[in-house]
């Protein structure tokens, strides 16, 4: 009934990644790849996805109900850091059964490919997803070579 939007693409990219990771996990008991030095444990708020094409790198932060103006984004060479805080005002007159939503400060640091251009970064916040687009340098893009 529903289409999977990431899966709708030719590459079916996140699905493939997940399958590969789980297959490797079955073989070795855990991921055989060394973890990035800035990698955090699963379940850290906010979850992020990073995707890349030859022209650009896109970073997606999944954080509902943020005040986007209060976010602190910075990029130094290929190191992108996003920090902010999300306070959830508790309803004083109510009795809580579940409190799963993250409340507090957060910070995530993402290592991008080396060829990103820190001068050309765009960010937008829509439907609770912060999308940061970083262009890659022209020189490193694959170039078509014609045989004469």
């Amino acid at each position, binding site marked *: 009934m529903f289409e*999977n939007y990431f899966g709708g693409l030719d590459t079916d990219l996140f699905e493939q990644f997940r399958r590969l990771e789980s297959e490797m996990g079955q073989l070795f008991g855990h991921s055989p790849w060394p973890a990035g030095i800035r990698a955090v444990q699963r379940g850290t708020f906010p*979850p992020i996805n990073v995707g890349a094409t030859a022209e650009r790198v896109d970073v997606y932060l999944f954080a509902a109900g943020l005040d986007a103006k209060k976010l602190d984004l910075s990029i130094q060479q290929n190191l992108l850091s996003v920090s902010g805080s999300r306070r959830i005002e508790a309803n004083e007159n109510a009795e809580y059964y579940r409190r799963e939503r993250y409340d507090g400060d957060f910070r995530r640091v993402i290592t991008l490919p080396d060829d990103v251009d820190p001068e050309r970064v765009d960010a937008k916040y829509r439907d609770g*997803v912060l999308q940061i687009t970083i262009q890659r340098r022209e020189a490193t893009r694959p170039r078509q070579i014609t045989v004469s």
Partner: protein
Amino acid sequence: MKTNQDVATSESAAVEKKTRERETVLVPAVDIFEDAHQITVQAEMPGVSKDKLNVQADRNGLLIEGDMEIDMSTGMAALYADLQTTRYRRCFVLSGELETERIEASLKDGLLTVRIPKRVEFRTRKIKVNVP
């Protein structure tokens, strides 16, 4: 013979696909609280727009479902992914004192708020204790 084999393969492929879909549902984080008049559910579903959201309720249960719509360019390869699917789903069992016909839902910045009013006769009333 060849044809039979093909059918068998495609059937098992379909089953496998279905199983995989079931496995890869995101469970939205929720806050649930109750006051004198209603129960409120707040669910985090970043990336879901109003048209891709499905909130269903009947006497027995509440279903929250949504599909993420992400602006991605074609041919994008994943470098890193905390979220590996785009479908959110979560269900709750409701009890009879809740007025499921009058449920209200709103969505803002990926945060879904569902308010389920209690039937009037079940609303908490303060009982005054008369001290002689």
